[in-house]
């Protein structure tokens, strides 16, 4: 069996165009979901690597972008689990009087951008996923339900709860946050 990646970076036909088209959307979606653009770029690259590996199957799918979004969300969820372990490790280090490896984050964005980013980041993971997929990626409810392996009613109730939470956050008015569901 030949490995197209073994002899260098010769991408299969059509792959580069697909990746170019989806990459900005993936980075945006993951940066909102993970609240970290650096992590989002890394996860996007990992996602697209999986697209490459499975390109023969992905290119004939009726909705290849849906498959790609799902891979990206799965990777992000795994990253959360790793980060959770890291946080516990940092906490243990702090408890022992050590210095955690924290890098200060400078954000030059405008206040409303910061507010939205903070509001999305503060949501529970599943609510955050719904908000990002519905309002950033513009996916319909049924597609979000399929991506998240849950019922459409669950997506609607998660959306409703997310909107309620976000409306209660400082700097976000009811005008900015829709009714949800």
């Amino acid at each position, binding site marked *: 069996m030949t490995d197209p*990646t073994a002899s260098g*970076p010769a991408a299969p036909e059509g792959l580069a165009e697909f990746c170019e088209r989806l990459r900005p959307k993936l980075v945006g979606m993951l940066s909102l979901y993970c609240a970290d*653009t650096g992590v989002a770029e890394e996860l996007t690259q990992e996602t697209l690597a999986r697209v490459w*590996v499975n390109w023969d199957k992905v290119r004939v799918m009726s909705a290849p972008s849906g498959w790609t979004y799902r891979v990206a969300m799965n990777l992000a969820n795994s990253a959360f689990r790793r980060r959770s372990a890291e946080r516990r490790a940092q906490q243990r280090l702090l408890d022992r009087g050590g210095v955690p490896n924290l890098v200060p984050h400078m954000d030059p964005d405008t206040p409303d951008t910061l507010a939205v980013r903070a509001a999305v980041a503060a949501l529970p993971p599943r609510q955050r996923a719904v*908000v990002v997929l519905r309002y*950033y990626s513009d996916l319909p*409810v049924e597609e979000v339900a399929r991506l998240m392996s849950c019922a459409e009613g669950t997506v609607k109730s998660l959306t409703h709860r997310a909107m309620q939470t976000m409306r209660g956050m400082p700097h976000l008015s009811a005008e900015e946050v829709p009714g949800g569901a």
Partner: protein
Amino acid sequence: MAPEPRLHDLLHRAAGAPAAPLDLADLGRRARRIRRNRRLGTAATVLALVAPVAVAGRVLTVPETNVGFLSGGGARSATPQPDGAEYRPSPAPAPTPQAGLAMPPSPGAPAGAPVAGTPTPRRTDGRESYATVTIQDPPGAPERRPDLPGDSRHPDVVLSLVLDRTTAGPDDVIDAWLDVRNTGEEPIALGSPRCWALWGLYQGGTWRGGQPDSTCGDRAPTHVLEPGQRWSISVRLDARTTGADGRRGAALAPGTYQAAAGLRVETREHEWSGVWYAPPVDVTVTG
């Protein structure tokens, strides 16, 4: 979907953008790494399965009590359990075999539905016996496995649901075990049904209750099941409706219900994830 322009715009402004152009060479290196890991994983599995037999030079005889749920009440995988999951290493044998536990291949299953196995023959030595049927989509399951078009890399998983009894009074709780076996060649990750609330009592495909007052407190804990490994999680089926707040509701009306349980399965490489169910088991609720 009605557009929500303000939030949409805000999210687009808040979302990050790629800082650098697409690096195809890096993608190629990552793809090569994924392929190499897959090959290593397959080779390790083959070695793990073949080496003990080859070295010993004889056929391994597995004691019947170690076959686990296939023979009933045997040893189960002593792998770590996810947060909040109860582990039943070896359920106590029932005094008599339970007649209702034999599960025929999903009655009413749609033609062509994938059923990867057949019921295990019952034991005849008087000990408890659980018949199992390998899965997959049972009729009346609350959610279908979300097949993705063109994606054939579904993990190879066998699930079976084992109940301690099939008849329950209005205030009874049925103890059940969801056994999971990775029959594939790659590791899979399992999400707990506790978080996803994927068990309960159904009637004609409609959820009626059965879930005790447990709620999803955190995100799905994940347990990785290596090829050939088996894992067991205990669930409890309450013969009551479940209220909207997840609390115990009224007693279920007498009748026949289908007990179902499933969990989230994901390939380690994150290329596939979905909800898989064990075949449902009929449960009679008495008045």
